[in-house]
Structures are given as C-alpha cells and as structure tokens.
C-alpha cells in the first residue's frame, strides 16, 4: 500500500487528495462507506486476500499484461512508443483489475449482490463477469442512449447473467447511470455492494479503485526497467473518470523525471474546461453551468462521456504533477486507424485518445520514449466505426 507523503499515496482522513475528494453522499450511505473503508484496509493488509486476488489476476484475467514495443508506429511518428497491453486482459480492458478486487472484497464483507454503472459497457461486462465467476447477483445501470450505442455489450452482460436496467433520466448516459446506481445502493445497502467503475465517487472509492489498478503501473515500471533500463520519458493515458490513468501513473508518479499526461475528450474535458464542483459524492473538476447544473458530456467514446473526473486527477492537475490535454473526435478516429494499420492492434476509442495526443505532439516528443496505456481493445467499437469510416475503408 502507498505510504503517506507519496505523490500518489493515501488520501487524508477526510478522503481528500489536496482539496479534492471527500464524501458528499446521502446520510444513509455514510456508515456503508465507513464500513467499506475499514473492509478495504483490512483486506489490502491481508496476505490471504492479496494472494487470492493475485491468483485471479494471473490465472483468470491473464496478468501480467505485456509491454509491447511499437516499432512501426514509432518509425512513423519519430517517437519511441510502448504500449501497456491492458487490452489483452480478460473482458478486453483494464476494468477487470478493479472489478475482481471489489467483488472479492464484497464477498469478504458478506454482500451477495453487485450494483454497477457503465458507460460503454466495459465496466458493466467486467462486473457481470466477476459476478458470474463468484456466483453473485449483478445489476448494471446503463444510460438508455448508451444501451443503444453499445448493444453488443448489453447482450454480453445479460448472457453473463446480469440484469441491465436503463437509466432514463437526464442525459441518459454515464452520469445518469451513476445516479441510478447510487439510488439503488441507498435502498439496498444492507446486502449490496456498489461496484463503482472508476477512481471517482465518495471516499474510499477513488483511492481503493486506484489501488486495485496500481498493478498496471507496478508491472509497467518493471517491464520498462527491463526493456529500457529505466522509466520512459512520458506516460500517457486517456481520462474519463480516470481509472486506467491513475493505475499506470501510480507506477511512475514518485519519479519526478517522468512526465505524466492525461488525455480527455474535447467534449468531456472536466479538467480542461471544468471548474471544481460537487457531484457523485466527490469534490472535483466538473463541467457545469453558471448555476452549478451539471453539463452533458459529448464524446465519440461512450466510456469517456463523463462530465466529471476522479478527485486525484484534479489534485495532480492542480499541483502540476500531471498535465491534462484534450483531443477531438476526428483526431481520435485518425489515431484509431493509424494504430490498427501500423501495429495490427485495434484500440478501443478510449485509449485512441491517448494515441491521438501522441500523434499530435510527435514533433515535441521526437526522440523521446512514450508509454501509452492501451487500456482496452476496439472490438466493442468496430460496429460504430464501420459507420464513421464508411467513406475511408
């Protein structure tokens, strides 16, 4: 576990990273969050729990994920590019790391039902998978708009035995699915665990979820040492809520020589265009209007369609330890095609944001080594991209 005083260590006793985070939830949930905090601390310090999780990550999810040196893409860009291959995990993204951890923790805490929100469906599929594996009941809330965009993942979840319920209020996307999941949890807290899918929400989620994803950064640091003799110059990851970024950043944040870069969609740029606010249990950067009404995010990627961001990212941005940049949908589409053609890797649209930033900044990055978190594979996006690329392919 991270020690206090680290750049990416524990939050303070109020669950804050700097001034961001906290626990802004209905009173009903406060005792459950305190119990979850105690439960996580106890489990994380327990070698038996850690051993069981490590075994599942290895034998079930397929960890460690490889580090791939991208020769053709590097030659094309004039930048040495490495991919951390979270796309090769079982269920197709980094989401499984967190979900296996939370599902084991829920079982240890005596909860028999998992509630989750999902945007693109990756976290929902991962949660449904963990529930099937451990024999738990699972209900996933998904925005009605996203259910239409990601039909395949809706079917996957149902095939895995989960119930998928549409969020029909507000913008009917990820933020509304979070609202519905929280409302469900307010009513079901005694026997349900809310399996939150990113480094967001009330304390202890932002910290706990980052710790479950720390494995990405820890593995990558060792793999880079073996390959490069040291860390890369730059670590890049896409940021919606920010879980894959938090995971990979945590492996390098303590080394000030390593530049950390988060890439947001231009239409969902909480750090880039938001101001601090309070929603979904946390104080963090948030896209909102002058009165504090939360704005709808718009991105080609349903997984990044979120108007907020995890509080630790707000803190890393405010201290300058990480910088956050925005790319637009057309840059993402170009990077999606380029990576497919130069590396034979079809990326998910989410990590294609990180790639798009590398492509745009290639002149500034010339001669440097850049580690990109390839947080998920693009299978889920292929149907959507058939339409987008109809004139090009």
């Amino acid at each position: 576990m991270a020690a206090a005083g680290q750049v990416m260590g524990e939050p303070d006793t109020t669950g804050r990273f700097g001034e961001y985070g906290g626990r802004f939830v209905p009173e009903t949930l406060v005792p459950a969050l305190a119990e979850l905090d105690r439960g996580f601390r106890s489990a994380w310090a327990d070698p038996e729990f850690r051993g069981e999780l490590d075994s599942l990550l290895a034998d079930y999810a397929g960890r460690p994920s490889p580090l791939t040196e991208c020769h053709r893409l590097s030659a094309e860009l004039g930048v040495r590019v490495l991919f951390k291959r979270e796309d090769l995990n079982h269920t197709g993204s980094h989401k499984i790391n967190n979900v296996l951890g939370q599902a084991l923790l829920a079982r240890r805490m005596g909860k028999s039902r998992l509630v989750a929100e999902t945007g693109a469906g990756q976290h929902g599929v991962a949660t449904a998978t963990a529930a099937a594996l451990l024999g738990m009941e699972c209900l996933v809330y998904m925005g009605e708009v996203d259910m239409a965009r990601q039909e395949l993942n809706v079917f996957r979840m149902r095939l895995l035995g989960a119930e998928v319920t549409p969020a029909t209020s507000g913008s009917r996307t990820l933020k509304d699915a979070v609202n519905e999941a929280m409302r469900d949890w307010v009513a079901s807290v005694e026997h349900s665990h809310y399996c939150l899918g990113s480094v967001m929400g009330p304390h202890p989620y932002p910290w706990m979820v980052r710790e479950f994803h720390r494995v990405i950064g820890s593995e990558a640091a060792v793999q880079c040492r073996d390959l490069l003799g040291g860390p890369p110059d730059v670590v890049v990851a896409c940021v919606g809520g920010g879980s894959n970024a938090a995971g990979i950043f945590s492996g390098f944040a303590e080394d000030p020589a390593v530049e950390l870069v988060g890439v947001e969609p231009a239409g969902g740029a909480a750090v880039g265009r938001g101001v601090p606010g309070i929603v979904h249990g946390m104080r963090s950067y948030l896209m909102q209007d002058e009165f504090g009404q939360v704005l709808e995010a718009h991105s080609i990627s349903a997984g990044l369609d979120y108007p907020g961001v995890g509080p630790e990212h707000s803190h890393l941005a405010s201290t300058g330890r990480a910088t956050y940049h925005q790319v637009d949908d057309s840059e993402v589409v170009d990077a999606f095609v380029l990576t497919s053609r130069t590396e034979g890797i079809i990326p998910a649209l989410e990590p294609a944001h990180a790639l798009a930033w590398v492509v745009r900044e290639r002149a500034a990055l010339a001669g440097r080594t850049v580690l990109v978190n390839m947080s998920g594979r693009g299978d889920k996006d292929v149907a959507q991209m058939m339409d987008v690329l109809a004139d090009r392919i």
Partner: protein
Amino acid sequence: MVGPLETALRARRDAGGKCLVPYLTGGLGEWVTHVQAAAAAGADAVEVGIPFSDPVMDGPVIQEASELALRAGANPPDLIDELGRTEVGVPTAVMTYANLVDRAGWTRFASSLAAAGVAGAILPDIPLEETGPWCEAADGAGVETVLLAAPTAPDERLERIVARSRGFVYAVGLLGVTGERSTLADSAVVIARRLKEVTDLPVLVGVGISTPEQAVEVCGVADGVVVGSAVVRRVLSAGAGAAAAEVVADLVGSFRSALDAG
C-alpha cells in the same frame, strides 16, 4: 438561538399537535401558488426544492418535477428571489444539493436565503462530516440547517447528528430515495423512536410518507412528517399550473385533518 422554523414546529408540538411540512418543487409551473396553498391548508412550514440536474436522493416523481422545472429555466437565484417576494405565512426551508450551493459560494448562498427570509436549508448530499463550511456560513447568516438521520446510523452517530441539526431533525423513514410507498416502513417508526430518545428537537419523518393514514401512524412516535412525492405527483398530474394549487390544498388539508384528529 432558536430560529423561526424550530419555533413554529415547537409551537405546534407544544400545543399538542403534529407538524406537517409539505415539499414542493420550485420552478415547476405556478409553484408559488402551490407553496401558498400548502401553507394556507395547514402546513407548519413548507419545503421548497431548488432543482438540480443530478438529484441522487430523489425518486422518479421529484426527478421528473426537477427536470421539467430546469427545462423551464429554473435557477437558484431567481427562485430564492421569488420566494423572498412571496407572502407564504409560515416558515420556509429550501431543499437542494451541494453543488448549487458550492457554485454560488457557501456564504453567498446562505446570505441570499437569509435575505429572502428563508428560514432553513436541507442539503441531502452534505452528510455530517462535510457540514463544516456550510454550517459555518448558515449559522453566520441565521439559516437553520436541517440534517437527515438515516436508519443505517448507529446510536452514537444519531447523537452527533441531532446535536448539529437546527430547525428539526429529518428522520429518513426507510432505506431508499424519495417516493411513495404503499405501506409505512417499519423502519420509519424505529428511526423516529431512536431519535426521540436522544433529542428534544422536533423529529419529522420523511421519505415514503404517502397517505394521511401513514402520517398518523408514524406520528404515534414522531412529532410530524415531511410529505414530498405524494404532493408533487398530484401537482404534475394536475398540470402544475395555478389549478394545481387546489389539488395541493386538498391533499395538505387531508393530512392536516387526519393529524389533528390523531
């Protein structure tokens, strides 16, 4: 110092009565007439919701009312101003979410409530541990902050909640969000009893109080009730215009009569 909200509720209780606080969504149709109708029909205070885009403590009825109000252009400063210009006749409390307060600034928001003559504030996503900056601002402005107490809280937590609550303590009647239920949850009576054991503040039960009969039942223990979705559902069905004020008056009147008859 005891504020006007607590004073009004204590007066009702001291006279041997039970407190009735209806909730209405601000900005929904002719909402001012709904608030006035509720007061005239026997409410001891009226709770006015300032709609937020992401109301996690609210069920479908208040979500719908909030969305309609927002679509009609409702915003916090205008609603508070309008409330300030309205003769209600009983104390009012606003119910809203942390981000609208934070965006305005804790102190500025509290001052604007005080300037409009609003007695109290209920902020369901600011639990005890996060009340610091808000309560400082509210206390400074003389606004009574009503805290919620849920069935999940252990006894020692209830004691800390009632110590910090002003006006009354809002007992959450069940595990769940706002909305009507066909029967009174057992947890409503239990939380009311647990709170009565630790405080002299008026204890009002809200969330899931849908009928006058349920109100009477829970008031066997509690000092009163907050009635939200049952009222707002009827406002929505009646089209939320001035005609809905009569519907509000009828319903609030039926709660009043039932509580007075005991």
